[in-house]
C-alpha cells in the first residue's frame, strides 16, 4: 500500500504513458538514471517492468540543458562558434563544421581548397574517435572490458593530432568561417599517415574481440530490431538508419566541403538489430580511413583561409605594418560581420546521424535564431517504442547501440 501511494505521487504527469497495471501496483516502475553508468551520461528513464520484461520505457532528458541556442543569439557569429563544441563533446570538430558551413552559406563566403581538405581530414578523424568511444562503451555495457581499454588507446592518438593542430584536445574551435584558424603544422601529415597506417590492423584486432565473439553475438543479434519503415517514421538517421537498410548518407546525397571528390562506400545492413549497427559503424571507420588516405594524397598547397577581410580577420603579422589590417581586426572582433536577412538549414553527416543547423540572420552581427537539429535528440525518441518487450539486460544493449551523447540531446 505504501508503494502504491508513492507511485501515485510520481506518475500523475505521465499517467498516459504507462499501463493501468502500473497504477494498480501490479507491475513495477523502475527509475534508471540519471546517474547510471549504462545510460552514457545524464539520461533518466522510467521503466515499467513486468518481471524482467520492459512494458514501457519513458526517457526523460534535459538534465544537461545549457541554453546554447539562447546564448548563441547573444553573441556575434564568430564568438558563437565556441558554443558549438559543447554540444556533442565527442564530435566537436563536426559541430564546428556544421556551424561554419551554415555561416558561410548565409554570408556567401568562399573557402580555399586547402582548408576544405584539412576540414575533411579532421572531421573524419573525429568520426573515427567518436566511433571508438561508442565501441568501447557499448561493448563495456555488454561486459567486454578489453575493447574499452583498446579503443581509448587509439582515440588518444587522434586527440593528440587535434591538440597538435589546434592546441586543444576536445574543444578545438579550429574551423572558422572562411577556412581554419591556422595552417596545420609540418608534422601533421606524418602523424595522420602513421595513424591511418596502423589503424586497419587495430580495427582487425577489435573485430577479433567482438565480431565472432559468441557472447557478443548472443547479446546483440536479433535484439532491438528496427524495420526500415519504422526507421523512416521515427526520423532515424546515420548508422542506425543504415543498419536498417536505408542507403542514405548526407555526404553522398548533398555533398559539402568537397566530399564529392572522394571515393568511399556507404555501408548498409538489412537486419536492423544491434549487431547490424555495430557492423555499420566498424565499416564506417574503415571508409573514413579511405577518405583520409585520399585527402592526404591530394593535399593541396595554398592559403588556409579566405582572403575576404570583411569576414576573416587578417593574419597577426599584418597588424604591425598595415593600418587597414588593424581596422579590420578591430571591427571584426568587436562588432563582428553582418549577415543578411534570411534563414538557411545546413545538414551534415555527424557520427550519429544528421546534424542540421537552422541559422537565421536579421541583417545584424548576431544570429537571430539558431536551432540545432541534433542526431542524438532525434534518434533517442525511438527508445520508448524500441525497448518494449525486451529484457532489462537487452535495454542496456539497445541504449548502447543508439549511440547518443547527452550534451547533444539537451543542448
Amino acid at each position: 500500500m505504501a508503494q502504491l501511494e508513492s507511485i501515485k505521487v510520481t506518475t500523475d504527469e505521465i499517467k498516459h504513458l504507462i499501463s493501468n497495471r502500473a497504477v494498480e501496483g501490479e507491475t513495477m516502475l523502475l527509475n534508471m538514471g540519471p546517474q547510471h553508468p549504462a545510460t552514457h551520461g545524464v539520461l533518466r528513464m522510467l521503466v515499467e517492468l513486468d518481471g524482467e520484461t520492459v512494458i514501457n520505457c519513458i526517457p526523460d532528458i534535459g538534465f544537461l540543458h545549457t541554453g546554447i541556442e539562447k546564448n548563441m543569439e547573444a553573441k556575434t557569429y564568430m564568438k558563437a562558434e565556441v558554443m558549438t563544441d559543447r554540444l556533442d563533446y565527442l564530435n566537436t570538430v563536426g559541430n564546428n563544421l556544421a556551424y561554419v558551413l551554415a555561416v558561410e552559406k548565409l554570408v556567401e563566403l568562399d573557402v580555399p581548397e586547402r582548408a576544405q581538405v584539412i576540414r575533411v581530414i579532421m572531421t573524419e578523424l573525429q568520426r573515427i574517435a567518436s566511433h571508438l568511444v561508442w565501441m568501447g562503451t557499448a561493448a563495456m555495457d555488454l561486459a567486454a572490458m578489453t575493447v574499452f581499454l583498446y579503443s581509448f588507446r587509439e582515440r588518444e592518438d587522434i586527440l593528440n593530432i587535434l591538440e597538435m593542430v589546434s592546441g586543444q584536445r576536445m574543444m578545438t574551435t579550429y574551423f572558422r568561417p572562411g577556412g581554419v584558424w591556422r595552417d596545420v603544422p609540418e608534422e601533421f601529415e606524418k602523424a595522420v599517415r602513421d595513424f591511418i597506417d596502423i589503424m586497419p590492423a587495430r580495427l582487425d584486432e577489435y573485430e577479433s574481440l567482438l565480431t565472432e565473439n559468441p557472447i557478443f553475438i548472443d547479446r546483440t543479434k536479433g535484439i532491438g530490431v528496427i524495420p526500415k519503415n519504422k526507421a523512416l517514421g521515427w526520423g532515424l538517421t546515420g548508422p542506425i538508419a543504415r543498419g536498417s537498410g536505408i542507403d542514405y548518407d548526407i555526404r553522398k546525397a548533398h555533398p559539402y566541403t568537397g566530399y564529392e571528390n572522394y571515393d568511399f562506400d556507404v555501408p548498409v545492413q538489412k537486419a536492423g538489430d544491434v549487431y547490424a549497427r555495430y557492423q555499420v559503424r566498424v565499416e564506417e571507420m574503415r571508409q573514413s580511413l579511405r577518405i583520409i588516405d585520399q585527402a592526404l594524397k591530394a593535399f593541396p598547397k595554398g592559403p588556409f583561409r579566405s582572403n575576404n577581410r570583411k569576414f576573416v580577420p587578417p593574419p597577426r603579422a599584418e597588424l604591425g605594418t598595415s593600418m587597414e589590417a588593424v581596422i579590420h581586426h578591430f571591427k571584426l572582433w568587436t562588432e563582428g560581420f553582418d549577415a543578411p536577412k534570411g534563414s538557411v538549414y545546413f545538414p551534415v553527416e555527424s557520427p550519429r546521424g544528421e546534424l542540421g543547423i537552422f541559422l537565421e540572420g536579421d541583417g545584424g552581427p548576431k544570429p537571430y535564431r539558431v536551432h540545432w537539429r541534433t542526431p542524438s535528440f532525434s534518434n533517442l525518441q525511438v527508445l520508448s517504442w524500441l525497448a518494449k518487450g525486451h529484457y532489462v539486460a537487452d535495454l542496456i544493449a539497445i541504449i548502447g547501440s543508439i549511440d547518443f551523447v547527452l550534451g547533444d540531446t539537451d543542448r
Partner: protein
Amino acid sequence: MEKEIKEITNDLKKKFKVEISEFRDEISLLVSPEKIVEVCKSLKKDHGFEQLSSLTAVDYWPEIAPRFHVVYQMNSYSKKIRLELRVPLDGNNPSVDSVESVYPNANWFEREIWDMLGVTIDGHSDPRRILMPHDWEGHPLRKDYPLGYEEVQFTFNHEEIQKRKPNPKD
C-alpha cells in the same frame, strides 16, 4: 532536381495556395496554419518526402501578426531533395496542429517548441515540457525572455534597478 522541386511546389500551390520563396537555393513554402497537416500528408504520400528532418520555431517579437513562424524541414530520401515549410502564427499564445500522425518523430520536436517557445500543439499525445524542469515558468527562447544577466547599476539608476533586483534573502 530543379524540375522535380518545381513540379512539387506548383502542385502544392494549386492545392493549398502556398507562397513560394527562395533564399540561397533553399525553397521555402509559406503554409497557412489550418492546412499544415494536409500539406504534410500530401508531401508524404504524393511526393516522396519520407522523413521530417527537423521542426523548430522562430519568434519575431515585438511583431504580433505573425509573431511566430513554425519551421518544418522536409527530407526526401528517394529524390534527394529538401524543402522548408513555414507556418505563420499570430498572437502571444498561438497554437498549431500536431503533425505527429503523419511523422511520428514530430513528437519530441513539438514538445520542444512548446517548452522553449510556448507554441501550443493541438492534438499532441504527450504535451509535457521536455528540456526545462516540469515546473518551469515561461518559455526561454522567446525574444521577450531575458538571457539572465545581472543589470549594471549606475548612480543615476541605482534605486530603480535595486527595486527589481532579485534578492537571495527573499
